[in-house]
């Protein structure tokens, strides 16, 4: 039979180490208090909510049967689903040259393997700002080698089809920042790809194609 004092001694083997641990951690907390928030901020910068998957998820919000593809004069901003990075939101085509490629929001290597990509610092069709698209000259944008001034390029989205008439094409160096202006208050379609076509090796030149919008629904609610 264990006596009361013996029980006390046995319990002490448990609560005394716990007591020491609590006091120890309190002292560490007090000492580290000035730097704890800094460490936690740095920690939150380098960690995520979940373990990373390291993949760009290629998804699609594009619906070629969308009722909004029927010609409408205007579309409210609230009805437009904004694409996330890596999602196909449109189809870019030009019948005369045989261009017909899925258009993705974003422009990393995974996206360009699947179709044409859009620089996310540019605007969506209908938003009255420049649209910058890119694609490989041996896959999605191969047909651009035949494009001419006057050709019509269409971008079909879930909220409407926008048509752009090619007004200019030029070859520029890939580092030439004057080749496009994303700050202009004009809806200009700019497509670019490596140049020349059917060239094996590294090329620093790019073919730029510029188009002005000629049709497509206006978006209401834009401020």
């Amino acid at each position, binding site marked *: 039979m264990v006596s009361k004092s013996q029980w006390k001694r046995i319990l002490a083997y448990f609560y005394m180490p716990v007591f*020491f*641990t609590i006091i*120890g*951690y309190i002292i560490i907390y007090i000492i580290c208090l000035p730097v704890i928030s800094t460490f936690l901020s740095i920690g939150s910068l380098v*960690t995520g909510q979940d373990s*990373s998957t*390291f993949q760009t998820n290629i998804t699609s919000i594009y619906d070629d049967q969308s009722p909004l593809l029927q010609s409408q004069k205007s579309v409210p901003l609230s009805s437009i689903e904004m694409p996330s990075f890596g999602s196909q939101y449109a189809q870019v085509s030009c019948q005369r040259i045989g261009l017909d490629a899925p258009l993705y929001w974003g422009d990393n290597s995974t996206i360009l393997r699947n179709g044409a990509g859009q620089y996310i610092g540019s605007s969506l069709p209908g938003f009255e700002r420049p649209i910058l698209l890119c694609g490989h000259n*041996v896959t999605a944008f191969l047909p651009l080698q035949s494009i001419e001034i006057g050709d019509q390029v269409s971008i079909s989205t879930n909220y409407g089809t926008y048509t752009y008439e090619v007004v200019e094409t030029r070859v520029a160096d890939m580092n030439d920042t004057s080749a496009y202006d994303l700050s202009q208050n004009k809806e200009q379609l700019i497509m670019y790809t490596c140049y020349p076509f059917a060239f*094996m090796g*590294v090329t620093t030149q790019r073919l730029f194609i510029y188009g002005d919008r000629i049709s497509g629904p206006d978006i209401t609610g834009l401020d």
Partner: protein
Amino acid sequence: MAKKIKPTVNVFSILIAFLLSVFLSILCLLLGTYFGLFNKALLSDAMNKSAYYESVNSYTVEEVSDLLIPQGLDSSVLDNVFTLQTTYTEGKALLDANLNGQGYTVSTDNIQEKLRNNIIDYTSKHNLAMNSTISDNITYFSNQVCSIYVQNLTVPFLSYFAGIRKMLFQVMIIAIPVLTLLSVGCILLLIKLQNWLHRALRMIAYSFSATALMVSLLPCYLLITRTYTKINISPIYFHKLLTRYIGQSLMMYIYSSIVMLAIALFVIAAIYQIKKRLMH
């Protein structure tokens, strides 16, 4: 009748026992860090078990494949260019050199030669004209591929490993003897303060148990919640290596706390034996 212990002696004993647990905790943390976080064998093991070298090859192939498209080449030019044998040999040599604070240049001559031959075979199969511009382009491309390969093979931050390990060793040369002396001093003081040996040993058992708890609490939390797997670091093979390595390093702290707990249990057994002898 047993002599009553003065309350001040009790309080002082508890204070010394607490200090002893702090000194032992710091000792365990230093040893755990040196034999865990800065353990060369652990890093090598983590690289082997996380399939690091195979992943470097497959990641390099994937990265280079994206460069092939605008070059007008296809993935067949990469056949047998990156072999596991070469990657393992060069990777191991690079790792050993970095861990020892030495420099090492990864040899890419074989890769360049194989890649160049594959591209030339490809051009002749597809009847593509070969001229000096294309030849220069092939050389430029091969150099680009080799630099990607070397970059992928190099473990980031490893160059700091040897330097920090050396600094830690310098700290340990001083800290371990000092902490050991302080711990022994606390133990002797506890024995001196108490009239009975088993009472002093009880305090010592509290200290060792507290050390086991203090040292294992945070590593256990990290191992159970796997917070360290949420580090945003790429590429994926480096993330796997780092999470495996951190996991194994945290286990070192757990092992040291198990040792402390074992000592505590031994001391408790000794207390039991002493009391039994006193009863008789």
